[in-house]
C-alpha cells in the first residue's frame, strides 16, 4: 500500500515572499562570512571584466533567503519527530546588486523509504526564486525527514 495523504497539496503554492533589493554590501558581507576571495564576488572592478560584466553573489547566496512561512499550515505528519534531511540547490541565473528577488514555496514531493532503522518519511519543500525580470534564479529543495 502506497503512502496515504491528500495529494492535492503537492505543487500548491503556500507562501510567496518578496525580498528588498539585494545590495552590494549584502553580497560583500556574505562573502566575508564565508571567507570567499573570488574577485567575481568580492571586487567590483575585477568583476566588471569577468563573464558577468559586474559583481555577482556567490551561488549559495540564495540559501540565506527565508520565506515568511517555511511550511504550510497543515503540514502532514507521518511520525513522532522530524529533522533536517538536507537540501539541494539548483542555480539558474546569477544574483546581482539591485535584484529584487521573490520566492514561491510549494510541497514538491512526499515519499517514504525504508532503511536499517525502519521507515522514514520525506517531505520536500521547494523554494523557487525568481528576479524582477521573471527569470528563474534558483531552486532549493529542503527535505524534512519524519519518523
Amino acid at each position: 500500500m502506497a503512502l496515504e495523504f491528500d495529494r492535492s497539496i503537492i505543487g500548491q503554492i503556500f507562501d510567496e515572499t518578496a525580498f528588498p533589493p539585494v545590495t552590494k554590501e549584502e553580497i560583500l558581507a556574505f562573502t566575508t562570512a564565508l571567507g570567499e576571495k573570488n574577485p567575481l564576488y568580492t571586487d567590483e572592478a575585477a568583476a566588471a571584466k569577468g563573464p558577468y560584466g559586474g559583481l555577482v553573489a556567490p551561488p549559495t547566496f540564495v540559501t540565506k533567503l527565508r520565506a515568511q512561512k517555511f511550511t504550510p499550515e497543515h503540514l502532514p505528519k507521518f511520525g513522532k519527530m522530524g529533522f533536517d534531511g538536507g537540501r539541494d540547490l539548483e542555480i539558474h541565473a546569477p544574483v546581482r546588486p539591485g535584484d529584487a528577488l521573490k520566492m514561491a514555496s510549494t510541497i514538491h514531493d512526499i515519499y517514504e523509504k525504508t532503511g536499517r532503522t525502519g521507515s522514514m518519511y520525506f517531505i520536500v519543500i521547494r523554494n523557487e526564486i525568481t528576479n524582477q525580470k521573471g527569470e528563474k534564479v534558483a531552486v532549493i529543495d529542503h527535505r524534512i525527514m519524519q519518523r
Partner: protein
Amino acid sequence: MARILDMHLHSEASDDSRAPVEAYLKWLARKRDERPLEGLVLTEHRQFNKAGDYRDLEDKYGLLILKASEVETDYGHMLVYGVNDDILNRFDFKNVRLSAQEVISEVARLGGIAMPCHPGRPTIGLIEHYQKRPPLEGVVGVEALNGGSKKGENERVAGLVQAYGYHAFGGSDSHLVSFVGLCATEFDRDIKTIEDLVDTLRAGGYRPLDFRVQRPQTPIAPEVPYHGSGI
C-alpha cells in the same frame, strides 16, 4: 561487452544520490588499474529510470551501462534486473511494502529477475526476515558483497548462500562518485545487453569481486618482543 560489472549503484536520479552518471564513468576511467570494470548497472531507488539514455556515454567511455531498479519489500530491498512495461504495470515501485514473494515470482514470470540486496543488513536485509518467517520461493541469488555494508553485514551472508544454495554477486551500492566499482561481479560469459544479464543471473556462472583497498592495521602501540612467562 563486459565481464566485470558493478551491479548496484545509484545516480542523481535517486533521491539520496547526487552522482552524475558521467562522473562515475570518469572516475572508473581514472581508477581502471584498481577497479578494472567493464560496465555498471544503475539501480535507482523505487523507480525505473526509463528516460535515462546513456548510449552516448557508453560510446565515449567504452563502458556498458545497463538500467535496473532497487525496490523495497516485506523481506527487505531487492534489485530488479530486466525491468519492462509488464513489470512496471504489475508493481508500483514507490510502494515500500511490496510483497517479496510476489516480486520474486512475478518478475520472473514477466521476464526479469529480482534478487535480494544487502541481505545481512538489519531491517531491510533478507537474513533478519528469514529468522522470523519462511524462506522465499524462487530466489536464485543474493548480493553477497555490498560496498555500503557496515562491518559484519557482508560476513553474515556466507551462511545464507551456503544454506540455501543461492548464487552470489556483488555491487558497490555507490551513492558517491568515488565509491563506484569498489565491489562488483565477475561473469563467466560476456554481457552485452540487459537480456544477457538476466539470462546469466538465472543460470549462474558469476561471483562477487572486492576491489576495496585493505588498509594495514595500525598497531595501537609499538610492537614489543614478548618475553612473558606464558601465563
